[in-house]
């Protein structure tokens, strides 16, 4: 089960509204390498993965990704809070407003809706863990691009935290791959 606590994993403080940045941040809210993709990916893969270490890693990193998704939602919410509709239109968020008003929606920076085809879940644990290692690197690279696009110290601070988490997750998935590999080698020797 999951339990909700009324707090963010990491604080979000923005200087002022920045619609353009909010639009770009949708990359990590509902894009291919978004926090949503990461959470759904890991939490779906965990059922059949061998070893307790791997099950724990997928469960806990998957859960952390949902907390990151909430941070992204908070960033977008704060960057768009109270802005006039005309400004949304000027910045290219008119289509979003037409369909959702000012509510958030899981789509990417260009407006394409989130889809499960962004992720893979495979019984083969080596294939699965390599998918995850790649996903963490792609997310890290996306955060670096987003940091380059921002000039708000608060936004950059939060994005830097999220970028670092991708690096740590990559490390943990690498260790998990070694553990699973050893397990598979032992299995094949026993046969």
């Amino acid at each position, binding site marked *: 089960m999951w*339990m*909700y*606590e*009324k*707090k*963010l*994993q*990491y*604080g*979000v*403080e923005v200087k002022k509204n920045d619609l353009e940045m909010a639009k770009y941040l949708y990359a990590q809210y509902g894009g291919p390498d978004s926090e949503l993709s990461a959470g759904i990916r890991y939490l779906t893969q965990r059922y059949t993965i061998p070893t307790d*270490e791997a099950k*724990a*890693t997928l469960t*806990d*990193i998957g859960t*952390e990704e949902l907390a990151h998704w*909430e941070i992204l*939602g*908070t960033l977008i*919410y*704060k960057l768009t809070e109270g802005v006039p509709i005309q400004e949304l239109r000027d910045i290219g968020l008119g289509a979003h407003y037409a369909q959702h008003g000012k509510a958030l929606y899981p789509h990417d920076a260009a407006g394409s809706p989130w889809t499960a085809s962004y992720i893979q879940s495979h019984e083969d644990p080596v294939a699965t863990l390599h998918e995850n290692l790649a996903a963490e690197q792609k997310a890290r690279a996306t955060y670096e691009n987003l940091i380059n696009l921002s000039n708000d110290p608060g936004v950059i601070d939060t994005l830097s935290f999220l970028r670092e988490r991708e690096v*740590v*997750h990559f490390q*943990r998935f690498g*260790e*998990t791959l070694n*553990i699973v590999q050893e397990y598979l080698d032992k299995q094949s020797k026993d046969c």
Partner: protein
Amino acid sequence: MNRQELELLKKIMALEFIVLEFSLYLNTHPCDEDALEDQQYYACKLKDLKRTYHQEYGPLTARCCNKEYPWYSNCSEQQGRYLWTYIDSPWPWQINY
């Protein structure tokens, strides 16, 4: 949310992160005694701070237990002060950190 409450909340957020970081490490290093000791130290500190927060400012979750109940005697649905204080505090996206 006043300054003191925010400071305590930030401490809880920081401790929660420390505990998570140790836990993720322990998932792939389950026999590391030093890491487990640190994880436990911070997990207990976190539990204490959450209890303090709950007693002073209300619950962070919908399943907190507090025998000193109720925190408010002047419940008013019009003014947004409830006996059920879980919904009384700001949501994470409404807080100025």
